């Protein structure tokens, strides 16, 4: 037991010193005040008030982008993981490798690539003009919410595929064949045999992509323009340009709490749905 504690000590020290304490301190700072660019310990709700009044709408937009990215990633991730697990045969492993190697590679490069594809003189516009679909470059391809969503889905998709694939690996072919032998249609097999068995994978994929998408600021900064801005950019603005650390802190935690509420509500709704489904089946 003592050895276990000793062995856990280094990683826990990093977790507590570089994460738990700083995050708690950041939360405390959201109640501090700023007077002539100087941060002062205080118990003020000004920063939180600013979050709800000034940034309320932007928070909702940010959540909408996060939800869209989370849903697309989960759906596409399921299709890809399903293909890799059941349809790709011996290429399944290769598909997984393609997913894994892009996991930790090229966050900035991916965003930059989309800028080059969607830009006014980018590849997509060149192609569309080349085949004569449009005579002018389409300006709305970049600097819009759509561009932000596409780039975020591209970046986060591997993170969605892995947990879904892991849970699909536990779905055995035997139960699928049994369902088929008993006369289930393809869609019944999918919805009543496969999906219920990988719900936890689907849920963690969604929660992760939703959280990271809602908290991103780099993608909207490069691809969002004015119509696609997200809250993270303004956290950065309050923090570095305005030196208003309390506001930046309240916005970070505000967004985080709202995101956790959304995830919690979805989890509750999902488990209720599951229970009702079980009730109907029995």
């Amino acid at each position: 037991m003592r050895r276990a504690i000793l062995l856990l000590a280094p990683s826990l020290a990093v977790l507590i010193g570089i994460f738990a304490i700083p995050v708690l301190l950041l939360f405390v700072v959201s109640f501090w005040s700023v007077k002539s660019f100087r941060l002062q310990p205080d118990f003020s709700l000004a920063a939180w008030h600013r979050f709800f009044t000034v940034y309320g709408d932007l928070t909702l937009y940010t959540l909408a982008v996060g939800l869209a990215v989370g849903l697309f990633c989960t759906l596409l991730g399921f299709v890809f993981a399903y293909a890799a697990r059941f349809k790709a045969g011996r290429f399944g492993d290769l598909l997984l490798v393609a997913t894994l190697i892009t996991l930790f590679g090229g966050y900035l490069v991916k965003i930059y690539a989309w800028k080059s594809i969607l830009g006014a003189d980018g590849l997509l516009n060149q192609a569309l003009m080349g085949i004569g679909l449009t005579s002018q470059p389409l300006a709305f391809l970049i600097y819009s919410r759509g561009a932000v969503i596409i780039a975020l889905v591209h970046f986060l998709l591997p993170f969605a595929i892995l947990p879904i694939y892991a849970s699909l690996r536990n779905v055995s072919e035997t139960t699928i064949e049994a369902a088929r032998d008993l006369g289930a249609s393809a869609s019944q097999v999918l919805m009543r045999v496969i999906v219920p068995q990988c719900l936890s994978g689907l849920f963690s994929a969604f929660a992760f992509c939703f959280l990271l998408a809602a908290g991103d600021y780099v993608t909207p900064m490069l691809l969002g323009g004015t119509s696609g801005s997200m809250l993270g950019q303004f956290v950065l603005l309050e923090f570095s340009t305005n030196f208003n650390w309390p506001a930046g802190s309240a916005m970070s935690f505000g967004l985080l709490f709202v995101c956790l509420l959304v995830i919690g509500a979805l989890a509750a709704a999902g488990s209720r749905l599951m229970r009702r489904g079980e009730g109907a089946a029995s």
Partner: protein
Amino acid sequence: MIWRLVIALFLLFMLGPILLVVLFSFGSNALIGFPMGGLTLDWYTKLAQDTGFHSAFWASFIVALATATLATITGTCAALALTKAAPKLVRSALAALSLPVLLPPLVVAIAIVVLFVRGLGLGLGLPVVILGHILVAQPFVILIVMARLARFDQATVDAARDLGATHWQAFRLVTLPQIASALIGAALVSAAISLDDFIIASFTIGGGNTISTFVWGKMRTTLDPSINAIATILLVLTVGLSALALRVSKYKG
């Protein structure tokens, strides 16, 4: 048949944009767009002479090396402790240690800055970047090493202990050689995570650049054509390390 098309489309979507950047880093035309011009290595030779890139490269090298070494140590220790622990403790410890990866990196980065600048009155710099990277890399080390330890024959360690080996001797002579490939894989993944991180580095570095923040500078300010070449270098480093890690550790999900 239709599934082949679906898979092809997925691979095009996932890998296509990245491959475009690589392709155009060898084109003589400055920007991404057709025609790409003749093949050239000009952008790479230009980078080789850029002192700003040199210092960014070495900063990234130091940070990645330190992160890989230290995160592999902290993560492996934790994995060793957790393989023998009660399942309930394992779940809560893993959840706690993974928390930094689940929060937006922006929040983690800002929190670290607040602690070091306001809380401790210390400056920022490469040591702070390294600490931040250890924080996000160690959960992945734990996962990889625990996956290896799950297939590990504990009897060999027990035999060594029965024959009079100390804990440390048993670890160094019996456990370590068997899990070495997983440790190398975990270290490579940690290095890839460190090299790829932009957000934590940009907040905590204070002055100077890593490769990521150097790329960001080019992305934001100029239409510098050498950006395709730097992006390609960054990509080759991170993806290459990940691929190598997969091969070495035979890790599968």
